[in-house]
Protein backbone atom coordinates (compact mmCIF):
# COMPACT_ATOMS: atom_id res chain seq x y z
CA UNK A 1 0.00 0.00 0.00
CA UNK A 2 1.33 3.40 -0.96
CA UNK A 3 0.78 6.42 1.24
CA UNK A 4 -1.12 9.31 -0.36
CA UNK A 5 2.06 11.40 -0.39
CA UNK A 6 4.04 8.66 -2.14
CA UNK A 7 1.21 8.12 -4.61
CA UNK A 8 1.14 11.83 -5.41
CA UNK A 9 4.90 11.84 -5.89
CA UNK A 10 4.80 8.83 -8.20
CA UNK A 11 1.99 10.09 -10.37
CA UNK A 12 3.08 13.73 -10.51
CA UNK A 13 5.26 13.30 -13.65
CA UNK A 14 2.38 11.62 -15.47
CA UNK A 15 0.04 14.49 -14.62
CA UNK A 16 2.69 16.96 -15.72
CA UNK A 17 2.93 15.26 -19.15
CA UNK A 18 -0.84 15.13 -19.56
CA UNK A 19 -1.09 18.78 -18.54
CA UNK A 20 1.55 19.78 -21.06
CA UNK A 21 -0.17 17.92 -23.88
CA UNK A 22 -3.50 19.53 -22.93
CA UNK A 23 -2.02 23.03 -23.05
CA UNK A 24 -0.41 22.20 -26.41
CA UNK A 25 -3.74 20.95 -27.77
CA UNK A 26 -5.62 24.05 -26.62
CA UNK A 27 -2.92 26.46 -27.83
CA UNK A 28 -2.79 24.81 -31.22
CA UNK A 29 -6.59 24.88 -31.63
CA UNK A 30 -6.65 28.54 -30.60
CA UNK A 31 -3.83 29.65 -32.90
CA UNK A 32 -5.08 27.74 -35.96
CA UNK A 33 -1.63 27.85 -37.53
CA UNK A 34 -0.57 25.27 -40.17
CA UNK A 35 2.93 25.02 -38.75
CA UNK A 36 1.60 24.23 -35.27
CA UNK A 37 -0.26 20.89 -35.35
CA UNK A 38 -2.33 19.78 -32.39
CA UNK A 39 -0.91 17.33 -29.86
CA UNK A 40 -3.25 14.64 -31.11
CA UNK A 41 -2.11 15.07 -34.73
CA UNK A 42 1.52 14.88 -33.69
CA UNK A 43 1.01 11.82 -31.52
CA UNK A 44 -0.91 10.12 -34.34
CA UNK A 45 2.16 10.56 -36.55
CA UNK A 46 4.44 8.73 -34.10
CA UNK A 47 3.44 5.17 -35.09
CA UNK A 48 4.04 6.05 -38.75
CA UNK A 49 7.61 7.09 -37.96
CA UNK A 50 8.37 4.18 -35.67
CA UNK A 51 6.79 1.75 -38.16
CA UNK A 52 9.01 2.96 -40.98
CA UNK A 53 12.12 0.85 -41.40
CA UNK A 54 14.15 3.70 -42.85
CA UNK A 55 13.27 5.99 -39.97
CA UNK A 56 14.11 3.33 -37.41
CA UNK A 57 17.53 2.76 -39.00
CA UNK A 58 18.10 6.52 -38.81
CA UNK A 59 17.14 6.72 -35.16
CA UNK A 60 19.26 3.70 -34.25
CA UNK A 61 22.25 5.21 -36.08
CA UNK A 62 21.77 8.36 -34.00
CA UNK A 63 21.64 6.39 -30.77
CA UNK A 64 24.75 4.44 -31.73
CA UNK A 65 26.75 7.61 -32.34
CA UNK A 66 25.45 9.02 -29.10
CA UNK A 67 26.41 5.89 -27.14
CA UNK A 68 29.92 5.84 -28.61
CA UNK A 69 30.46 9.57 -28.15
CA UNK A 70 29.17 9.42 -24.59
CA UNK A 71 31.10 6.27 -23.69
CA UNK A 72 34.44 7.46 -25.03
CA UNK A 73 33.95 10.88 -23.43
CA UNK A 74 33.27 9.33 -20.02
CA UNK A 75 36.25 6.98 -20.26
CA UNK A 76 38.49 9.88 -21.23
CA UNK A 77 37.11 12.58 -18.96
CA UNK A 78 36.92 10.78 -15.62
CA UNK A 79 40.65 9.98 -15.40
CA UNK A 80 41.54 13.46 -16.66
CA UNK A 81 39.23 15.19 -14.19
CA UNK A 82 40.48 13.07 -11.29
CA UNK A 83 44.11 13.76 -12.15
CA UNK A 84 43.36 17.48 -12.40
CA UNK A 85 41.65 17.38 -9.03
CA UNK A 86 44.63 15.76 -7.31
CA UNK A 87 47.52 17.46 -9.09
CA UNK A 88 47.98 21.20 -9.29
CA UNK A 89 50.38 20.82 -12.22
CA UNK A 90 47.92 18.80 -14.30
CA UNK A 91 45.12 21.24 -13.46
CA UNK A 92 47.29 24.25 -14.34
CA UNK A 93 48.09 22.69 -17.71
CA UNK A 94 44.57 21.70 -18.76
CA UNK A 95 42.55 24.51 -17.21
CA UNK A 96 43.33 27.16 -19.86
CA UNK A 97 42.62 24.68 -22.65
CA UNK A 98 39.27 23.79 -21.17
CA UNK A 99 38.45 27.44 -20.54
CA UNK A 100 38.89 28.11 -24.25
CA UNK A 101 36.69 25.20 -25.32
CA UNK A 102 34.07 25.75 -22.64
CA UNK A 103 32.10 28.73 -24.01
CA UNK A 104 32.21 27.55 -27.65
CA UNK A 105 28.98 25.81 -28.69
CA UNK A 106 30.28 22.41 -29.73
CA UNK A 107 28.03 22.35 -32.81
CA UNK A 108 29.72 25.56 -33.98
CA UNK A 109 32.90 23.52 -34.43
CA UNK A 110 31.08 21.16 -36.80
CA UNK A 111 31.80 23.00 -40.07
CA UNK A 112 35.53 22.98 -39.33
CA UNK A 113 35.60 19.36 -38.23
CA UNK A 114 33.58 18.46 -41.33
CA UNK A 115 36.32 19.95 -43.48
CA UNK A 116 38.82 17.62 -41.89
CA UNK A 117 36.80 14.47 -41.29
CA UNK A 118 33.85 14.71 -43.67
CA UNK A 119 30.14 14.56 -42.86
CA UNK A 120 30.14 10.98 -41.63
CA UNK A 121 29.88 9.28 -38.26
CA UNK A 122 33.31 10.32 -37.04
CA UNK A 123 32.57 14.03 -37.17
CA UNK A 124 29.23 13.70 -35.41
CA UNK A 125 30.60 11.33 -32.78
CA UNK A 126 33.50 13.70 -32.13
CA UNK A 127 31.11 16.60 -31.57
CA UNK A 128 29.08 14.51 -29.12
CA UNK A 129 32.34 13.56 -27.40
CA UNK A 130 33.25 17.23 -26.99
CA UNK A 131 29.81 18.09 -25.66
CA UNK A 132 29.87 15.35 -23.03
CA UNK A 133 33.51 15.76 -21.96
CA UNK A 134 33.36 19.16 -20.30
CA UNK A 135 30.72 18.54 -17.64
CA UNK A 136 32.22 15.13 -16.85
CA UNK A 137 35.73 16.58 -16.53
CA UNK A 138 34.42 19.44 -14.42
CA UNK A 139 32.47 17.28 -12.00
CA UNK A 140 35.26 14.67 -11.74
CA UNK A 141 37.66 17.50 -10.99
CA UNK A 142 35.44 18.96 -8.27
CA UNK A 143 34.78 15.51 -6.82
CA UNK A 144 38.48 14.61 -6.70
CA UNK A 145 39.41 17.96 -5.18
CA UNK A 146 36.90 17.50 -2.37
CA UNK A 147 38.20 14.09 -1.27
CA UNK A 148 39.11 14.29 2.39
CA UNK A 149 42.88 14.26 2.80
CA UNK A 150 42.70 12.08 5.90
CA UNK A 151 41.02 9.39 3.83
CA UNK A 152 43.99 9.38 1.48
CA UNK A 153 46.37 9.36 4.43
CA UNK A 154 44.56 6.38 5.90
CA UNK A 155 45.06 4.59 2.58
CA UNK A 156 48.72 5.60 2.42
CA UNK A 157 49.26 4.18 5.92
CA UNK A 158 47.81 0.88 4.71
CA UNK A 159 50.40 0.84 1.96
CA UNK A 160 48.45 2.06 -1.09
CA UNK A 161 50.63 3.62 -3.78
CA UNK A 162 49.65 7.00 -5.29
CA UNK A 163 48.07 5.30 -8.32
CA UNK A 164 46.19 2.84 -6.10
CA UNK A 165 44.94 5.76 -4.03
CA UNK A 166 43.66 7.49 -7.18
CA UNK A 167 41.83 4.39 -8.41
CA UNK A 168 40.71 2.89 -5.14
CA UNK A 169 40.05 5.95 -2.98
CA UNK A 170 39.67 9.09 -5.10
CA UNK A 171 37.52 7.39 -7.76
CA UNK A 172 34.95 5.84 -5.40
CA UNK A 173 34.94 8.84 -3.07
CA UNK A 174 34.24 11.17 -6.01
CA UNK A 175 31.74 8.82 -7.65
CA UNK A 176 28.56 10.67 -6.58
CA UNK A 177 29.91 13.89 -8.07
CA UNK A 178 31.24 12.11 -11.19
CA UNK A 179 27.84 10.56 -11.84
CA UNK A 180 26.17 13.96 -11.52
CA UNK A 181 28.49 15.11 -14.32
CA UNK A 182 27.69 12.01 -16.39
CA UNK A 183 24.00 12.69 -16.05
CA UNK A 184 24.40 16.22 -17.37
CA UNK A 185 26.65 14.76 -20.06
CA UNK A 186 23.97 12.32 -21.13
CA UNK A 187 21.43 15.07 -21.75
CA UNK A 188 24.08 17.11 -23.57
CA UNK A 189 24.88 14.05 -25.71
CA UNK A 190 21.27 13.96 -26.87
CA UNK A 191 21.28 17.69 -27.63
CA UNK A 192 24.57 17.61 -29.56
CA UNK A 193 23.42 14.50 -31.37
CA UNK A 194 20.40 16.34 -32.80
CA UNK A 195 22.28 19.57 -33.58
CA UNK A 196 25.09 17.67 -35.30
CA UNK A 197 22.53 16.02 -37.55
CA UNK A 198 20.95 19.34 -38.26
CA UNK A 199 24.27 20.67 -39.56
CA UNK A 200 25.47 17.53 -41.33
CA UNK A 201 22.28 16.11 -42.83
CA UNK A 202 22.82 12.60 -43.92
CA UNK A 203 21.23 10.27 -41.44
CA UNK A 204 19.79 10.22 -37.97
CA UNK A 205 16.84 11.40 -35.92
CA UNK A 206 17.79 15.03 -36.48
CA UNK A 207 17.85 14.40 -40.22
CA UNK A 208 14.26 13.13 -40.19
CA UNK A 209 13.19 16.13 -38.14
CA UNK A 210 14.80 18.81 -40.30
CA UNK A 211 13.89 17.16 -43.60
CA UNK A 212 10.25 17.10 -42.49
CA UNK A 213 10.57 20.77 -41.55
CA UNK A 214 11.89 21.60 -45.03
CA UNK A 215 9.01 19.77 -46.61
CA UNK A 216 6.39 21.33 -44.37
CA UNK A 217 5.37 18.05 -42.73
CA UNK A 218 4.71 19.69 -39.40
CA UNK A 219 3.00 16.72 -37.75
CA UNK A 220 6.18 14.69 -38.38
CA UNK A 221 8.34 17.52 -37.01
CA UNK A 222 6.38 17.64 -33.78
CA UNK A 223 6.16 13.87 -33.57
CA UNK A 224 9.98 13.73 -33.77
CA UNK A 225 10.24 16.35 -31.05
CA UNK A 226 8.03 14.17 -28.84
CA UNK A 227 10.11 11.07 -29.70
CA UNK A 228 13.39 12.82 -28.91
CA UNK A 229 11.95 14.21 -25.69
CA UNK A 230 10.72 10.75 -24.68
CA UNK A 231 14.16 9.31 -25.43
CA UNK A 232 15.70 11.93 -23.17
CA UNK A 233 13.32 11.15 -20.33
CA UNK A 234 13.86 7.38 -20.66
CA UNK A 235 17.65 7.67 -20.83
CA UNK A 236 17.73 10.00 -17.86
CA UNK A 237 15.42 7.79 -15.81
CA UNK A 238 17.47 4.69 -16.67
CA UNK A 239 20.68 6.46 -15.80
CA UNK A 240 19.23 7.72 -12.53
CA UNK A 241 18.33 4.16 -11.51
CA UNK A 242 21.90 3.02 -12.14
CA UNK A 243 23.29 6.06 -10.36
CA UNK A 244 21.13 5.57 -7.30
CA UNK A 245 22.25 1.95 -7.08
CA UNK A 246 25.94 2.79 -7.43
CA UNK A 247 25.95 5.45 -4.72
CA UNK A 248 23.51 3.89 -2.28
CA UNK A 249 26.22 4.32 0.37
CA UNK A 250 26.47 8.09 0.03
CA UNK A 251 24.74 10.60 2.28
CA UNK A 252 21.06 10.69 1.40
CA UNK A 253 20.03 13.54 -0.85
CA UNK A 254 16.77 14.82 -2.18
CA UNK A 255 16.66 13.62 -5.74
CA UNK A 256 14.04 13.51 -8.43
CA UNK A 257 14.12 10.58 -10.81
CA UNK A 258 12.89 12.63 -13.74
CA UNK A 259 14.70 15.92 -13.31
CA UNK A 260 16.21 17.57 -16.39
CA UNK A 261 19.53 18.66 -14.94
Amino acid at each position, binding site marked *: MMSPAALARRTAPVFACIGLLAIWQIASLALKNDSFPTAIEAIRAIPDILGDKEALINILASLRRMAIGFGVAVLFSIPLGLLMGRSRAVAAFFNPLLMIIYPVPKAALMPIIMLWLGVGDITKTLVIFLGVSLPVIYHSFEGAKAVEE*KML*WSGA*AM*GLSPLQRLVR*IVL*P*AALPEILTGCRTGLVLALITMITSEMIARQSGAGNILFNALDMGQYDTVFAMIVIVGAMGICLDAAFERIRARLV*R*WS*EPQFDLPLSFS
Partner: protein
Amino acid sequence: MKVVPSRSSEWVKPVTPQKPASAIIEIDQVSQVFQTSSRKDHLALSDISLTIEERAFVSILGPSGCGKSTLLYIVGGFVSPTSGAAKMKEKAITGPGPDRGPVFQEFALFPWKTVLGNVMYGPRQQGVRAAEAEAQSRALIEMVGLKGYENFYPKELSGGMKQRVALARTLAYHPEVLLMDEPFGALDAHTRTRLQNDLLNIWERDRKTVLFVTHSVDEAVFLSDKVVMMSKSPGRIRQVIDIDLPRPRRRSELLLDARYQKYVVDIERMFDESDEAGSPS
Protein backbone atom coordinates in the same frame (compact mmCIF):
# COMPACT_ATOMS: atom_id res chain seq x y z
CA MET B 1 52.14 1.04 46.53
CA LYS B 2 54.19 4.14 45.99
CA VAL B 3 53.74 7.19 48.11
CA VAL B 4 52.51 10.23 46.25
CA PRO B 5 55.21 12.87 46.20
CA SER B 6 53.99 16.04 47.82
CA ARG B 7 55.88 18.48 45.64
CA SER B 8 55.18 18.56 41.96
CA SER B 9 58.79 19.21 41.08
CA GLU B 10 59.70 15.72 42.24
CA TRP B 11 57.75 13.98 39.50
CA VAL B 12 57.84 16.71 36.91
CA LYS B 13 60.94 15.99 34.93
CA PRO B 14 62.43 18.05 32.14
CA VAL B 15 62.92 16.43 28.74
CA THR B 16 65.88 14.10 28.95
CA PRO B 17 67.90 13.89 25.75
CA GLN B 18 69.41 10.47 26.47
CA LYS B 19 67.42 7.66 24.90
CA PRO B 20 66.28 4.59 26.80
CA ALA B 21 67.06 1.17 25.41
CA SER B 22 63.48 0.44 24.39
CA ALA B 23 62.88 3.60 22.37
CA ILE B 24 60.61 3.01 19.38
CA ILE B 25 60.12 6.57 18.15
CA GLU B 26 62.69 9.31 18.37
CA ILE B 27 61.91 12.87 17.45
CA ASP B 28 65.09 14.84 17.08
CA GLN B 29 65.09 18.65 17.01
CA VAL B 30 62.05 18.88 14.79
CA SER B 31 60.85 22.29 13.65
CA GLN B 32 58.00 23.05 11.32
CA VAL B 33 57.49 26.33 9.52
CA PHE B 34 54.31 27.08 7.57
CA GLN B 35 54.00 29.78 4.97
CA THR B 36 50.80 31.65 5.60
CA SER B 37 49.28 34.52 3.67
CA SER B 38 48.97 36.90 6.62
CA ARG B 39 51.99 36.12 8.75
CA LYS B 40 54.82 34.89 6.62
CA ASP B 41 56.70 31.92 8.08
CA HIS B 42 54.65 30.77 11.02
CA LEU B 43 56.72 28.62 13.37
CA ALA B 44 54.29 25.84 14.29
CA LEU B 45 56.83 23.57 16.01
CA SER B 46 60.09 24.74 17.49
CA ASP B 47 62.93 22.36 18.23
CA ILE B 48 60.94 19.37 19.46
CA SER B 49 62.90 16.43 20.83
CA LEU B 50 61.04 13.51 22.30
CA THR B 51 61.59 9.80 22.77
CA ILE B 52 58.72 7.39 22.94
CA GLU B 53 59.30 4.03 24.51
CA GLU B 54 57.93 0.81 23.21
CA ARG B 55 54.52 -0.18 24.59
CA ALA B 56 54.02 3.16 26.29
CA PHE B 57 50.84 5.17 26.14
CA VAL B 58 51.99 8.73 25.58
CA SER B 59 49.69 11.73 25.34
CA ILE B 60 50.51 15.04 23.76
CA LEU B 61 48.56 17.67 25.63
CA GLY B 62 48.28 21.32 24.80
CA PRO B 63 46.02 24.18 23.74
CA SER B 64 44.52 24.30 20.27
CA GLY B 65 47.02 25.46 17.67
CA CYS B 66 50.16 24.43 19.57
CA GLY B 67 51.17 21.98 16.84
CA LYS B 68 49.97 18.67 18.32
CA SER B 69 48.47 17.45 15.06
CA THR B 70 51.47 18.60 13.07
CA LEU B 71 53.77 16.63 15.35
CA LEU B 72 51.62 13.53 14.97
CA TYR B 73 51.51 13.95 11.18
CA ILE B 74 55.31 14.14 11.12
CA VAL B 75 55.56 10.85 13.03
CA GLY B 76 52.97 9.40 10.65
CA GLY B 77 55.07 10.50 7.68
CA PHE B 78 52.17 12.53 6.24
CA VAL B 79 54.11 15.77 6.67
CA SER B 80 57.87 16.15 6.47
CA PRO B 81 59.40 18.55 8.96
CA THR B 82 61.13 21.74 7.87
CA SER B 83 64.15 20.72 9.90
CA GLY B 84 65.10 17.89 12.21
CA ALA B 85 64.09 14.28 11.82
CA ALA B 86 61.81 11.63 13.22
CA LYS B 87 62.87 8.02 13.47
CA MET B 88 60.97 4.81 13.96
CA LYS B 89 63.12 1.94 15.23
CA GLU B 90 66.28 3.80 14.27
CA LYS B 91 65.08 4.28 10.69
CA ALA B 92 64.30 7.76 9.39
CA ILE B 93 60.60 8.29 8.70
CA THR B 94 60.19 9.31 5.06
CA GLY B 95 56.53 8.55 4.49
CA PRO B 96 53.46 6.77 5.81
CA GLY B 97 53.65 3.05 6.44
CA PRO B 98 51.62 0.24 8.00
CA ASP B 99 53.90 0.20 11.05
CA ARG B 100 52.22 3.46 12.15
CA GLY B 101 48.43 3.44 12.12
CA PRO B 102 46.54 6.75 12.32
CA VAL B 103 43.11 7.34 13.87
CA PHE B 104 41.79 10.81 13.05
CA GLN B 105 39.26 13.02 14.77
CA GLU B 106 37.37 13.13 11.45
CA PHE B 107 37.16 9.29 11.34
CA ALA B 108 38.05 9.32 7.61
CA LEU B 109 36.23 6.04 6.97
CA PHE B 110 35.69 4.88 3.39
CA PRO B 111 31.99 5.73 2.98
CA TRP B 112 31.50 3.34 0.03
CA LYS B 113 32.59 0.38 2.14
CA THR B 114 30.57 -1.32 4.85
CA VAL B 115 31.93 -1.62 8.39
CA LEU B 116 33.38 -5.00 7.47
CA GLY B 117 34.75 -3.67 4.18
CA ASN B 118 36.48 -0.81 5.98
CA VAL B 119 38.08 -3.07 8.59
CA MET B 120 39.16 -5.64 5.98
CA TYR B 121 40.71 -3.00 3.73
CA GLY B 122 44.13 -2.89 5.42
CA PRO B 123 44.66 -6.64 5.78
CA ARG B 124 43.56 -7.20 2.17
CA GLN B 125 46.01 -4.54 1.04
CA GLN B 126 48.75 -6.35 2.97
CA GLY B 127 47.94 -9.52 1.06
CA VAL B 128 46.01 -11.41 3.74
CA ARG B 129 43.64 -13.91 2.09
CA ALA B 130 39.99 -12.84 1.97
CA ALA B 131 38.61 -15.53 4.28
CA GLU B 132 41.29 -14.94 6.87
CA ALA B 133 41.00 -11.15 6.69
CA GLU B 134 37.25 -11.45 7.13
CA ALA B 135 37.53 -13.70 10.18
CA GLN B 136 40.05 -11.37 11.84
CA SER B 137 38.00 -8.32 10.97
CA ARG B 138 34.81 -9.81 12.39
CA ALA B 139 36.65 -10.53 15.63
CA LEU B 140 37.92 -6.95 15.78
CA ILE B 141 34.49 -5.53 15.08
CA GLU B 142 33.19 -7.57 17.99
CA MET B 143 36.05 -6.34 20.17
CA VAL B 144 35.17 -2.70 19.55
CA GLY B 145 31.56 -3.49 20.40
CA LEU B 146 29.98 -3.35 16.95
CA LYS B 147 28.88 -6.94 16.48
CA GLY B 148 25.78 -6.95 14.29
CA TYR B 149 26.80 -3.81 12.39
CA GLU B 150 29.17 -5.53 9.94
CA ASN B 151 27.07 -4.71 6.89
CA PHE B 152 26.18 -1.13 7.81
CA TYR B 153 27.55 1.76 5.81
CA PRO B 154 29.34 4.59 7.69
CA LYS B 155 26.48 7.00 7.01
CA GLU B 156 24.22 4.71 9.03
CA LEU B 157 26.40 4.96 12.16
CA SER B 158 26.66 7.51 14.99
CA GLY B 159 29.89 9.42 15.59
CA GLY B 160 30.98 7.12 18.40
CA MET B 161 30.34 4.04 16.27
CA LYS B 162 32.27 5.54 13.37
CA GLN B 163 35.27 6.10 15.61
CA ARG B 164 35.03 2.51 16.83
CA VAL B 165 35.15 1.38 13.20
CA ALA B 166 38.12 3.66 12.52
CA LEU B 167 39.96 2.15 15.49
CA ALA B 168 39.19 -1.40 14.35
CA ARG B 169 40.22 -0.53 10.79
CA THR B 170 43.60 0.66 12.02
CA LEU B 171 44.12 -2.21 14.50
CA ALA B 172 43.33 -4.65 11.68
CA TYR B 173 46.66 -4.18 9.92
CA HIS B 174 48.63 -4.51 13.16
CA PRO B 175 50.56 -1.24 13.28
CA GLU B 176 53.29 -1.20 15.90
CA VAL B 177 52.37 2.35 16.87
CA LEU B 178 48.89 3.84 17.06
CA LEU B 179 48.73 7.56 16.23
CA MET B 180 45.51 9.01 17.57
CA ASP B 181 44.67 12.67 16.87
CA GLU B 182 41.96 13.84 19.26
CA PRO B 183 40.00 10.71 18.33
CA PHE B 184 37.20 11.46 20.78
CA GLY B 185 37.18 15.22 20.26
CA ALA B 186 34.08 15.23 18.08
CA LEU B 187 32.01 13.07 20.43
CA ASP B 188 29.59 13.97 23.21
CA ALA B 189 30.79 13.59 26.81
CA HIS B 190 29.00 10.33 27.47
CA THR B 191 30.21 8.62 24.30
CA ARG B 192 33.68 9.99 24.86
CA THR B 193 33.88 8.42 28.35
CA ARG B 194 32.71 5.06 27.04
CA LEU B 195 35.24 5.09 24.24
CA GLN B 196 38.03 6.07 26.62
CA ASN B 197 37.17 3.07 28.81
CA ASP B 198 36.98 0.72 25.84
CA LEU B 199 40.24 2.00 24.38
CA LEU B 200 41.95 1.45 27.70
CA ASN B 201 40.58 -2.10 27.96
CA ILE B 202 41.76 -2.92 24.46
CA TRP B 203 45.12 -1.30 25.03
CA GLU B 204 45.73 -3.01 28.38
CA ARG B 205 45.25 -6.32 26.59
CA ASP B 206 48.00 -6.04 23.96
CA ARG B 207 49.84 -2.83 24.87
CA LYS B 208 50.78 -1.31 21.58
CA THR B 209 52.72 1.91 21.59
CA VAL B 210 50.21 4.77 21.47
CA LEU B 211 50.82 8.40 20.67
CA PHE B 212 47.61 10.14 21.67
CA VAL B 213 46.85 13.80 20.98
CA THR B 214 44.32 15.55 23.18
CA HIS B 215 43.54 18.91 24.69
CA SER B 216 41.71 17.35 27.64
CA VAL B 217 43.74 17.08 30.85
CA ASP B 218 41.43 14.39 32.32
CA GLU B 219 41.69 12.28 29.23
CA ALA B 220 45.47 12.52 29.11
CA VAL B 221 45.94 11.60 32.78
CA PHE B 222 43.35 8.83 32.71
CA LEU B 223 44.88 7.07 29.70
CA SER B 224 48.59 7.74 29.73
CA ASP B 225 51.88 6.53 31.12
CA LYS B 226 53.42 9.82 30.10
CA VAL B 227 51.98 13.22 29.31
CA VAL B 228 53.88 15.60 27.06
CA MET B 229 52.74 19.15 27.80
CA MET B 230 53.09 21.60 24.95
CA SER B 231 52.81 25.35 24.84
CA LYS B 232 51.94 27.43 21.84
CA SER B 233 53.41 30.18 19.63
CA PRO B 234 55.81 28.65 18.91
CA GLY B 235 54.86 25.05 19.65
CA ARG B 236 57.28 23.76 22.25
CA ILE B 237 57.48 20.96 24.76
CA ARG B 238 57.10 22.46 28.23
CA GLN B 239 57.28 19.41 30.36
CA VAL B 240 57.05 15.65 30.24
CA ILE B 241 55.19 14.13 33.16
CA ASP B 242 55.16 10.46 34.10
CA ILE B 243 51.75 9.35 35.25
CA ASP B 244 52.41 6.85 37.98
CA LEU B 245 48.97 5.34 38.45
CA PRO B 246 48.30 1.61 38.70
CA ARG B 247 46.81 -0.40 35.86
CA PRO B 248 44.30 -1.70 34.96
CA ARG B 249 42.68 1.65 35.57
CA ARG B 250 39.02 1.96 36.38
CA ARG B 251 37.49 5.32 35.80
CA SER B 252 35.20 5.06 38.83
CA GLU B 253 38.15 4.29 41.12
CA LEU B 254 40.48 6.78 39.54
CA LEU B 255 38.14 9.74 39.92
CA LEU B 256 38.25 9.19 43.69
CA ASP B 257 41.99 8.65 43.76
CA ALA B 258 43.89 11.56 45.30
CA ARG B 259 46.92 10.93 43.10
CA TYR B 260 44.82 11.16 39.92
CA GLN B 261 43.21 14.34 41.19
CA LYS B 262 46.59 15.83 41.98
CA TYR B 263 47.95 15.12 38.52
CA VAL B 264 44.94 16.80 36.94
CA VAL B 265 45.05 19.82 39.23
CA ASP B 266 48.79 20.29 38.88
CA ILE B 267 48.72 20.07 35.11
CA GLU B 268 45.80 22.49 34.88
CA ARG B 269 47.62 24.89 37.19
CA MET B 270 50.72 24.77 35.00
CA PHE B 271 48.65 25.64 31.94
CA ASP B 272 46.99 28.50 33.82
CA GLU B 273 50.37 29.92 34.78
CA SER B 274 51.55 29.93 31.19
CA ASP B 275 48.27 31.53 30.09
CA GLU B 276 48.84 34.38 32.51
CA ALA B 277 52.40 34.81 31.31
CA GLY B 278 51.60 34.55 27.63
CA SER B 279 48.82 35.72 25.37
CA PRO B 280 45.21 34.78 26.14
CA SER B 281 44.14 31.54 24.48
